């Protein structure tokens, strides 16, 4: 199956001429494309996180004047007081950017690109050209999303879920004009980019594995990227169709999602459509999207935890099966976002059932991570800290999912801050930790230099305290009954006692936000002045560390290494070293475990 003859690739020599443009801009090389993804994702991340800090200021000190609003928001903050429409716009764009641009493209795009060819032993992606297109489409969609911040009436402001009719009618709110048009265009381009990339990943993993790299010898990172790409292919086209139908409703007078509407003194012509249909289409992507974000992070955590615990990942097969089970279930649970939309209650029961089932493979994964740490020899490199942090927030956030996924309980918690706390912990912070773990771990591979570990430690510990400090108290605000997406709660004296909690949350958010500056400084300065890396700094088993430090086209000079064992032979009895890379043949009499 995987016995691809590798020698025919050898004419992929290293002499052909590269201009500045083919090397740095329109590169076909997966290593360069992964760096492009990472840097674009980080820039979008700065925008997304900065936005969250702005609206956190408004929530802690509502309707007060801030100099920074005056500077950044201009006419949308008269006398430095944030406008309610702008608050909604910030929440909307923060969500969109973090979910799609940072945690989908930034995380999955970066690490699928750098790791798939290097860890399976391939010269490059199956199609370098498609790979380049997918990056540049992502770039265009990022540019469109940023451009939408500057239109006259402001960017999209209907929430990242852009439910019509609010998102369909410019009369309903200013953000539903040109801002929403750009949002839809940007997302349409983004989806095309994501699909091209995903197809490329799948084809590469299935066809280009080196000799000996069977599916049961694939690192868990690759399993995660492969399954993620499959979910992308299944779910993203549905969002594209939803976006196209919404564009039709907005611009061409169709009534897919609209019916019987009276707004601003006028009866509109729409008849027979249903916003609930949009919600179904949106969440058919929207829920799998959670796992598109999370699975790569879990894959990275598996690799980082095994390497740094100097132990095999516990229950490799169970890990693979749980990834597959989560992926399958993720496509049949979308209705749990819609328990109170007026959907048939029986359907609600079905979705409750499927949703809570996801807790089983998730629990298996969490327990396996913990068991991997047991009796390890844990090396606390910065990546390891973030990987352990990920397991922690994955548990804390996942457990409240058992509450929210239960339709009867969701009635009263739906769309409150409890939901905000839940998903930020389980997918936001977890995936962000996955991204950081990945950057710290593979920075030497990508940039040939080491990051400063002490700055990494400080970055982690401040972020860890900040993240729990922000999202743990938020559960209480939700259980007090406060709806999300409220510009302020001062209009309800009933919620006056939440003001203190909001101040505490914002304080922690500012601290955690400031900690990211440490990361940025570390990232940029290490890129240029970091200590030069060794061949295999983390003493890891996977194939990428056998490739030369200096990046070359085709990844390995001469033949691609063959694979003789699974990637988790850490501290194997009978071996002098505590790691045995995958390309080392079995010793005489040595048994391989997984076959």
């Amino acid at each position: 199956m995987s016995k691809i003859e590798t020698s025919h690739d050898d004419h992929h020599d290293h002499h052909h001429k590269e201009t500045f443009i083919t090397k740095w801009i329109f590169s076909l090389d997966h290593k360069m494309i992964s760096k492009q993804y990472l840097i674009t994702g980080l820039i979008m991340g700065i925008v997304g996180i900065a936005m969250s800090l702005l609206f956190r200021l408004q929530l802690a000190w509502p309707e007060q004047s801030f100099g920074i609003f005056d500077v950044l928001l201009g006419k949308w903050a008269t006398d430095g007081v944030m406008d309610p429409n702008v608050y909604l716009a910030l929440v909307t764009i923060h969500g969109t950017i973090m979910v799609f641009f940072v945690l989908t493209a930034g995380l999955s795009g970066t690490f699928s690109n750098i790791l798939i060819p290097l860890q399976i032993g391939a010269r490059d992606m199956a199609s370098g050209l498609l790979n380049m297109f997918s990056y540049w489409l992502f770039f265009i969609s990022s540019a469109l999303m940023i451009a939408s911040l500057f239109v006259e009436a402001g960017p999209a402001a209907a929430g990242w879920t852009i439910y019509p009719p609010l998102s369909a009618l410019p009369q309903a709110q200013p953000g539903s004009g040109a801002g929403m048009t750009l949002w839809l265009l940007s997302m349409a381009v983004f989806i095309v980019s994501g699909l091209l990339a995903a197809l490329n990943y799948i084809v590469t993993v299935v066809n280009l594995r080196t000799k000996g790299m069977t599916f049961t010898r694939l690192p868990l990172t690759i399993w995660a990227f492969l399954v993620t790409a499959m979910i992308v292919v299944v779910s993203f086209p549905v969002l594209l169709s939803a976006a196209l139908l919404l564009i039709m409703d907005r611009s061409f007078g169709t009534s897919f999602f609209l019916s019987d509407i009276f707004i601003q003194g006028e009866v509109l012509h729409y008849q027979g459509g249903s916003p609930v249909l949009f919600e179904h289409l949106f969440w058919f992507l929207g829920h799998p999207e959670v796992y598109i974000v999370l699975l790569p992070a879990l894959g990275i955590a598996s690799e980082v935890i095994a390497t740094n615990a100097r132990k095999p990942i516990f229950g490799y097969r169970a890990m693979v099966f749980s990834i597959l089970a989560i992926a399958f279930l993720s496509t049949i649970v979308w209705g749990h976002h819609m328990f109170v939309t007026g959907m048939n209650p029986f359907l609600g029961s079905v979705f409750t059932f499927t949703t809570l089932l996801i807790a089983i493979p998730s629990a298996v994964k969490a327990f396996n991570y913990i068991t991997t740490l047991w009796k390890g020899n844990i090396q606390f490199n910065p990546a390891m800290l973030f990987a352990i942090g990920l397991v922690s927030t994955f548990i804390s956030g996942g457990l409240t999912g058992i509450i929210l996924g239960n339709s009867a309980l969701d009635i009263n918690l739906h769309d409150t801050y409890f939901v905000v706390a839940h998903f930020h912990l389980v997918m936001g912070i977890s995936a962000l930790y996955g991204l950081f773990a990945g950057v710290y771990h593979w920075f030497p591979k990508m940039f040939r230099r080491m990051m400063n570990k002490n700055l990494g430690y400080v970055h982690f510990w401040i972020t860890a305290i900040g993240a729990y400090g922000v999202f743990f108290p938020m559960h209480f605000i939700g259980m007090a009954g406060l709806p999300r997406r409220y510009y302020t709660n001062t209009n309800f004296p009933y919620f006056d006692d939440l003001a203190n909690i909001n101040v505490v949350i914002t304080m922690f958010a500012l601290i955690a936000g400031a900690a990211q500056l440490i990361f940025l400084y570390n990232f940029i300065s290490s890129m240029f002045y970091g200590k030069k890396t060794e061949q295999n700094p983390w003493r890891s088993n996977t194939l990428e560390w056998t490739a030369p430090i200096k990046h070359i086209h085709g990844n390995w000079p001469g033949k691609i290494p063959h694979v003789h064992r699974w990637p988790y032979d850490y501290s194997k009895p009978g071996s002098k070293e505590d790691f045995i890379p995958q390309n080392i043949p079995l010793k005489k009499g040595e048994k391989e475990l997984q076959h």
Partner: protein
Amino acid sequence: MTIILSLISLILISVAVWQLTKIFELSKPVQSESTGVANDNDNDINGKLMFLFLIFLYALTIFSFFKWGDVILPESASVEGEKTDTLLWFSFSVIFVVQTITQAFLYYFAFKYRGNKKRKAFFFPDSNLLEGVWTVIPAIALAGIILYGLMTWTEIMTIEENDEALVVEIYAQQFNWKARYSGDDGVLGDANVRFLREFGGKNLVGIDPTDPNGEDDVVVQELHLPVDRQVVFRIRSQDVLHSMFMPHFRAQMNAVPGMINQFSFTPNVTTREMRLKKEVVDKVKKINNIRFKKSQELAAKGEFPLDPYEFDFLLLCNKVCGASHYNMQMKIVVETQEEFEDWFDEQVTFKEFIK
């Protein structure tokens, strides 16, 4: 003031960061050169910090419950809500136990097995027994939660038609709520947004003027409900999505243009009784303290002080609907059947209103 405060905190944070970096730097053996890879010393410090973090997590949990436990919604004021509350606290106790134990294992192992040169990790790639245990136990626990949850859900969502129930239409628009009661005939007149402009804008919820059932309907801006009687809500919206959210009754349903949604519950505590409950009295006292302090600040600036607060049931909008989403509310009054009838008799019917 806030600028100074934020400046001070920024400076303090920077100092803290600088100090922390220093600690890591100083704690390194002098001779070893930084390679970017963790050494025994880093492992030791970070392992211990892992344990401290576990304590931080527990402390945060205890502190939050102690300090903010009283902001959680008071006991439910509806029959159905009491059932969801039992389910909620049951689920919470399960996840609370799991959270406490798993986090302990995670951080304790991270601390206990922090690496050093002498340690050798234990090669332990698999165990069918363990995998089986932590597949089966969660499966059993979840089966219980799912069954319990679905029974509660079905009970709440099955709305039986009966003559006793009070039928009320909740009508949403940017950015207010209205309620419509059927008159003596017990039937709500047909309605559609296409009738909204008739009678010079006096047809507030678009009642079909040709439907005789609508003539005695009553449209109000404050929701009154009789206690201990089932209420069936018919929920409409005229423009965008809204959500009828009544947290004190554990009730929520979206208002969708072009659709009529339903939800039902039986309020079992009147507003008056609710105001006398201890947890509500305490909460109101706390809120009034906060408001009093704020009022003093406002008065010092020459602005109007805040009114003292008295508890009322609320209907809020819980689906983002535009700029004033955060201020789309309606007061709910739960009262005895007699009080309700007295109030209802004072209201103007649709026929009288459009005259």
